[in-house]
Structure formats: C-alpha cells, structure tokens
C-alpha cells in the first residue's frame, strides 16, 4: 500500500509542478499582453488629445474669420445683424405644389362648408340626422 501512496504523491507533485510552470508563463504572457494594450491605449489617447488640440487650432475664431472673409462672396454670406431676427409668423411657407394635370381641380386643402346632404343615388336631399356622425 505504501509504495503506491509514494508513487501517487510523486506523480501529484510532478503534475502540480508542471501546472505551476505553465501558469507562470501564462501569467507572464498575459502581463506582457496587458502592457502592450495599455501602451496602445496610452498612445491612442495621446493621439486623441493631439487631434482634439489640432481641431481646436484649426477651428480657432481667427482662422474661421479669415476663411469667412476669403469666401464671403462665393458663399453669399451676410454679416449677422440684429435686423435678421424675425418672428415665426414672418416666415413665408412655399406655395402648395399643384401636380400636372390637376390644374383645374379645386384646392383640396381648402375648408368646405357643408349645409345639407344629398343622396348620391337619387339626388334627393336627406334631412340631417339628429345624432352627429350617423348617416342612414
């Protein structure tokens, strides 16, 4: 019984040693990977900061003003003036478009006043129903 126990203990020790060896290298690899990723994150962050700074530099009011002056006529710009403020009611909406072939038809958006009802088959007038919305 005892030799078997010794053999098993020896095998267990060897197995654990092998496991520890592999874990050690796996950990080191993970740490290396992490360092690499963190360096990458740091360099990306740095690039981001730099690009943000560059964006701010390219959008500095002085440069935008010069660009606006250069392209003033080409873009049809106007200086911002107090008189350009208006009320919403002053906005002119586009005229309703009339489709080709529909010129003769009345405006379907215009409100219509209805005074009585006519039977579509006989043409005879129908007295309005006492209850709204109920038709014979």
């Amino acid at each position, binding site marked *: 019984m005892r030799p078997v126990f010794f053999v098993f203990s020896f095998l267990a020790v060897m197995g654990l040693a092998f496991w520890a060896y592999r874990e050690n290298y796996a950990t080191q690899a993970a740490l290396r990977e992490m360092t690499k990723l963190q360096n990458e994150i740091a360099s990306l962050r*740095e690039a981001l900061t730099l690009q943000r700074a560059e964006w701010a530099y390219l959008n*500095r009011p002085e440069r935008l003003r010069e660009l606006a002056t250069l392209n003033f006529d080409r873009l049809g710009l106007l200086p911002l*003036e107090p008189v350009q403020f208006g009320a919403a009611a002053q906005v002119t909406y586009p005229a309703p478009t009339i489709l080709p072939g529909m010129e003769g038809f009345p405006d379907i958006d215009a409100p219509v006043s209805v005074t009585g009802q006519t039977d579509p088959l006989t043409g005879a007038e129908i007295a309005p129903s006492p209850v709204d919305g109920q038709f014979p």
Partner: protein
Amino acid sequence: MIRTPLRPLARILSARQKGENPDTIERENLRLRHEEIRDKSRARAEVRLLFLSLGFLAAFATIGARMGLLAATEPMEPRTAAAGAEIVATRADITDRNGRILATNMQTYALYAQPRDMVDPGRVARELAKIFPEIDPVALERRLTDGRSFLWIRRVMSPEQMQRVHEIGDPGLLFGPREMRLYPNGQLAAHVLGGASFGAEGVSSAEVIGTAGIEKALDARLRDPAQSGTPLALSIDLTLQATIEEVLATGKTMLNAKGAAAILMDVRTGEILSLASLPAFDPNDRPNPLVKGDPGDSPLFNRAVQGVYELGSTFKIFTVANALEQGLVEMDTMVDANAPKRWGRFTIKEFQNKNYGPLLSVEDVIVKSSNVGTANLALMIGAERQAAFFQSLGFFEPTTIELVEAPGARPIVPKRWPDITTITTSYGHGISASPMHLAVAYAAIANGGVMVKPTLLQGGVPQNGPRVMSEQTAAASIRMLRRVVGEGTATLGDVPGYQVAGKTGTAEKPNAQGGYDTDKVVNTFASLFPADNPKYVLVVTLDEPVETSGSEPRRTAGWTAVPVAGEIIRRTAPLMGLRPVVEPPPVDELTAVSN
C-alpha cells in the same frame, strides 16, 4: 524541586541549646527563598524581553527594508489594474462655456545631453545651433566640455526639430518626454488663461504649473488627479471673446489708444462672458515681465482687472442713486448746477467750462453729466453715507474673480473724506477702481439693486447677494442711463433694438508731477442692455484714445469708448440670442389733463 523547610528541626534544636532565637533561622530561610524566587522571575522576564526586542527588531527591519526598497526602485505603473484617464492627463483641460478647448496638453520632448557619452561635442554644438537659432555654438561647446555629466538643452521642441536632432546621431543627446501646455487659440483670452510653465523637472517627466491668470489661481484644481479627466469649464464664450477682441482691437487702432479693455458680464449670475485686455500676448510663448518702466505698459498687464483708474463720470450714477435711495431727492427735483462752483480753494467746473445751471433736474444731471449738480447732490448725502454706499458696491476691496491678479488690484480709496473728497468722488475722481469693479457695480443696478459676485466659472446660478438699493432706485437709475444713450453724451452707442443704457466717463490721467495731463485720458463707457430687462453689462475702457476725424482731436468717451461699445453690442447681442425689440415710447410723454 525539594522545598527547604523554613524551620529545619536540627538547626532549631541546636539553636535552642545555644540559647539563640530560632526565629532568626526562619527569617533567614525566608529571605533565601525570596531571593531565589526573585532571581528566577528576573531570568524569565529577561528572556521575554529578549524575545520582545527581537520581535520589534524584525518588524522594524521589515518596514525599513521595504521603505528602502520602495525608495530605491524606479516607480512603475500598476500593470494589472485597468488604466483610467486619470493616469494619462496630468493637468485638466480648460474649455469655454460651450466646451471649446482653450487650453490642453500636448506630448512633446525635452532635449538633454550627457557629455560623457558624447562623441564630438564641437560638431554637436554647431549642428544644434543650426536647428535652434537661439543657441550659441561656442558657449554650448564650452558647457559640453567643462566636465559636467548632465546638461539641459531645450525644454520643449517640435517633432521636426526632434527628427533633426536625431539625425545628428550623437549618443550623448537624449530626449525626455514632456507634457506641454498648449493654447490653440493663441492670443485669445490670454489674460484670462495666463500661462503655464514647468515646475520641478526630471528626465522622464516634469511638473506643469500655472504662472498667471486662472491657470495659477485654480492651479490646485487643475492639477488634482481626481479631476484631471473633467475639463474646467469657464464662463467665457469663445465666439463672443473673439468678436469683442476684434472690435476692441479695431477701435484701439482707429483711436490711437495705448490700451483697451472690455468686460461683458451676465447680471443675474455674475458670469463673465468675455474679458479682454489689449495689448495681449500669446500664452504659448509668454513674454517676460518688464524689468524697468511702468509694468502697466507690459502686454502681460490685465487692464480689465489690474488696471486701477479714476473712472470719471461713470460714478455719477452711484451718487444720484444714493441720493434717490436716501430719499433726499426725486428724479425731477431741481438741484443747483450753477457752474463753476467754488468750494474752499477748489473750483468745480463743467466740461469745456459750460454751465448747465442755474437749476437742473436730477435726471438731467446724469443726462448732461453735470459735475456741479453731482457735487451738490454729494454734499446733500454727506461723506459718511457716500463712503458707505461705495463700500457696499465693492469699491473698497479687490474683486473676488478667479484670477491670481485680482487680489493685488486693490482700489485706491481716499483715507479721509473731507467735503472736497465727497465732491470729487461723486464724479469719479480721487477714487480709483478697476473696470471689473465698475462692471460689478453696474451689474448691481442692472440686477434690480442686488449685488452679484463676478465669476469666471461656468454654471452660475442667479445670485441672491446683498441688496444695495431698492428696486425703484435701480429702475430709476436705468431710466436715466437709458436717456444718456438716447439723448445725452452717449448717443453714438445707441444700437437700434437693444435699448442700450449707460454712462460715459472721461478721466484725465494723473502724471508724475502730481497733476493731471489734459491730453492723456482714460475713457470709459459702462453700459447695460436691454434697458427694459437688463441681462448684460458691458464696460469698455480705452487708455489714451484720441479721435482725430474732426477739426480738432476729441478725447471724450462719447467719441471713443461709446462707438466701440456700440459696435460690440451690435455684433455680440445677436450672438447671445438677444432679439431686438421695438422700444415703447417713454410713458411720460403724454400727460392726461382735464379741466
């Protein structure tokens, strides 16, 4: 252990035979036994003490060794923890109120040399002088060969310069990474931002510290690692700031002024939307302070905050408001305005020796800017109440704005208040304050008589400061100020639709001889708009302007500061989303009469 009896029979008996006292034997034995017990316990205690001291020794040795280890090893970032933004950015960004960047950091490199590793110091010095024009090759070669082992050459450099240094290819030239402060907008808002430089410098990193402006005033907040990820948002609006600086620079050039300053402030929250001072400087390349001459001539000088001037007639509205507040007069009360007025050995005159008198209504004192009328009102108020009113408006203390220059800009206040001081301070002479003080005081009027604290930080809420005058007095003051722009001395500042109200001030500059220079003036226009519901206060100050379009040079604020302020309002009010309104006619023009 065999216990010795205290009274051994044999010795007792023999002692008795000899006629001795047997009790002495017992006492002797007792003594011996006690000594034995004592020795034993002492030995045990010594062993314990030994173990205890060994324990302490081990503990302290462990701590000491650990400390030594920590001190001796290179610092290393924790590798297993996830890196947050706080590790990357060392100093928080500064943005304007809309999040546009005013100051940020940039990675760059410093250049240093280790002359012992250097192959050819002479060639290195010559090549470096070609890249960096400020380097003197002879002096650099001498420093590289005098036996030192370490030498800083450049604090920061551009990537192109770094590449060219690389191409020299000498192993004694080394680079150290640096976080550099960058102001992408150049001179814009330079006096607000101030500047930054390096503090303690090491090879692998350097401290960035603020040197002026808000960078220094809020240095602790900007350096706080816990807050380095959140940018510091200022109340400044970049677009407004750019517009105001542009208009101000144009005005300064056209009017041949030495300097100019403008402050735009929200009267409810106290937020400073724009603070400009010209001439300005580039915070990326901050000039050195002047070593001789007037520090006020340096571009580093913040005229809006540090410039303490006699602000002239802009003060008259405070005197009139005080008189109204005390119930001494009404707006239509007639006061003596007969010029010139003699007071002791002094003579108080009007502008160009005019005479608006003999009597002038309180309202017209402001509209016509009568010195004599204001002086008489001040005499009615009295020195004590006048000084107290100025104090309540903040003219006795430096402003609390978040700039490192602010606490140093202490107003110059007369020590005593004889009657002549009461008279001169009533129209803004003999008392000096910065344009920021004036903006705060006008904001109190615009805010219905409640003081606001000026701030440069975004997120201001309507302030509930101390009340310095009643709402009626504030409203009456605004009405008078509106008439100044409508028909008085500041008509050039009337912007249609924005109901500008304000007061001009022209103060001659004191000279070195103790008198006043008539051809050197400080012109100020303090305004608030729109008058029916004031939202903003604008103060424009021009230093030594002169308007030369007419037949003779004009130096009054109405011809210099006022048109500049008017143009600023015309340009900025739409940017702030202020809608122009058609002004209702004054209510008192029609009077109902019946008979």
